[in-house]
C-alpha cells in the first residue's frame, strides 16, 4: 500500500490538499496514516488561536500619543522641496547670523582707530543683536513646534540623555561616512538607540520640552530608517539619511551641549 507523507497529511488536515478525496479514502483503511493524520490534527488543535489581550480605551490613547509623536507633517510630493528648505532654514539662519557678526566685527575693527567711533560701535553692536533677535524670532514664529527651531537652553533633568545623544551622534556620523549596506553591529546599535529614544522623546514631551522632543522625534525617524534598512546598497534610506542627518547632527550637538552645560551648573 502506498502511504502518504507527513506533508501530504498536513496539507490534508489544513484543507490545502489537492488530493483530499483519495487521502480521505486511504485514511479509512490505513491505521498508520490515520494515526499520523490524527497527530497532525492534534497539533493544530493545541496550537489553535489563543485569546488576544484586550486593548482598553486608555491603551488606545497611549498608543495614539506614542504614534502621534512620531508623525511628521506630510506634504504632497511636489512641495517636498519646500519642506526640506524649511528644515535647512535654521542652519542657514545660523550661517547668516555668523556672516552678520563677521561683517560687524570687521566694521568695528575698521572703526577702532577712529576717536569718534565709540558711540558708533555701540550702535552697531546693538543692531547686530537686533538682527540676530529678529532672525531667531522670525524662525520661532514660523516653526513654533515642528521646525528645527532654536533650541531651548533649559537643560534636561536626565543625565542619561547626554550619553544617549552622544551615542546617537556618533552612530549617525559613522553611518554618514559609510558606503554600502549597514553591518549587523550598526543595525543592532540603531535598534537599541531607537528603543531608548522612544522613552526619552516621551520624557521630553512630558516635561514640556518641545524643542528637545522634536529633535528626538527626528532622530527616531532616522533610527527607524536604519533599523529597517534593506540590504541593497543604494536605496531610499541612504538618500533620506543624506538629507536628514546634517541638520539633525547639528541639533543633536546643540542639545548635548545644552545638556552638558546644564549638568555642570
Amino acid at each position, binding site marked *: 500500500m502506498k502511504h502518504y507523507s*507527513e506533508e501530504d497529511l498536513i496539507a490534508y488536515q489544513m484543507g490545502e490538499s489537492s488530493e483530499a478525496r483519495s487521502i480521505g479514502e486511504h485514511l479509512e483503511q490505513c491505521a498508520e496514516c490515520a494515526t499520523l493524520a490524527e497527530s497532525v490534527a492534534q497539533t493544530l488543535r*493545541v496550537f489553535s488561536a489563543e485569546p488576544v489581550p484586550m*486593548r482598553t480605551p486608555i491603551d488606545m490613547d497611549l498608543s495614539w500619543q506614542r504614534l502621534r509623536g512620531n508623525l511628521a507633517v506630510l506634504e504632497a510630493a511636489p512641495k517636498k522641496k519646500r519642506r526640506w528648505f524649511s528644515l535647512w532654514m535654521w542652519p542657514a539662519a545660523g550661517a547668516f547670523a555668523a556672516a552678520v557678526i563677521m561683517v560687524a566685527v570687521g566694521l568695528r575693527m575698521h572703526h577702532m582707530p577712529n576717536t569718534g567711533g565709540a558711540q558708533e560701535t555701540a550702535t552697531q553692536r546693538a543692531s547686530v543683536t537686533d538682527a540676530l533677535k529678529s532672525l531667531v524670532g522670525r524662525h520661532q514664529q514660523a516653526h513654533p513646534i515642528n521646525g528645527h527651531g532654536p533650541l531651548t537652553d533649559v537643560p534636561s533633568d536626565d543625565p542619561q540623555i547626554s550619553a544617549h545623544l552622544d551615542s546617537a551622534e556618533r552612530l549617525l556620523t559613522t553611518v554618514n561616512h559609510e558606503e554600502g549596506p549597514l553591518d549587523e553591529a550598526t543595525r543592532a546599535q540603531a535598534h537599541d538607540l531607537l528603543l531608548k529614544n522612544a522613552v526619552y522623546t516621551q520624557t521630553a514631551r512630558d516635561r514640556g520640552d518641545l524643542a528637545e522632543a522634536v529633535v528626538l522625534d527626528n532622530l527616531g525617524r532616522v533610527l527607524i530608517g536604519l533599523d529597517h534598512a534593506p540590504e541593497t546598497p543604494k536605496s531610499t534610506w541612504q538618500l533620506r539619511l543624506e538629507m536628514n542627518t546634517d541638520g539633525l547632527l547639528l541639533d543633536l550637538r546643540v542639545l548635548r551641549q545644552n545638556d552638558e552645560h546644564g549638568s555642570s551648573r
Partner: protein
Amino acid sequence: MEKAEKEAIRRVVAGDRDAYRVLMDRHYAAVFRISFRITGNEADAEEAAQESFLRAYNKLPEFRQDAAFGTWVTRIAMNTAMNLVERRNRDLSVYAPRVSDEVGEGTVQVASHRAGPERALLDMETATLRHAAMASLTPMERTAFTLRHMEEVGMAEIAEALGVPVNSAKQAVFRAVAKLRRALEPVAGGMR
C-alpha cells in the same frame, strides 16, 4: 473605501496629522491582533503595530485608494511583525528573558503527569511549552503558520504580504506544523 476614511487620508496627506487617528482607531485592533499572533507577546505586538501605522503613514501619499486602507495596513503589519520576530531572534538581549529560556525538561514532565495527554497539552502550564515550540520556528514559518492557521488568511494573501511565492508560503506553513508536531511528541507520546 468608506467616505470617512478617504476624507481622513486626504486630510492627513494635506498635513493634518491628527486626522490619522480616525484610521488608527478603526484598524488598530486588527493590526494589533495580527501582530500579537505573529510576535506572540503583547509588548512586541504593540511595537509592531506602532511601526506598521508609522510605515503606513509615511507611505500614505503614495497609497492608491482603490484598495482598502485596512487591508493595506494589515498587510504591512504582517511583514513588520515578521521582521520584528527576526530582529528579536537576532538580538536576544533587547528584551527580558524569553519564554524559551525558561522552558526545561521539567515543564514537559510536569505536564505529562496529567490525566489525558491532550488535556495536558491544553493546560495553562504547557503554555510555556507551546511558546517554546513556536519560538523554535523561523520567523517566516511562524508568521505564515499563525496567519494561515489562527487568522485563516489565504495562502495567496500571506505570500503577497511576505513577498514570497505562494508555494514557499505553503511550504513554510507545512514545515511549521511538522516542527510543532515533533515538539509535542514528548508530551503527546501517549496518544500515538
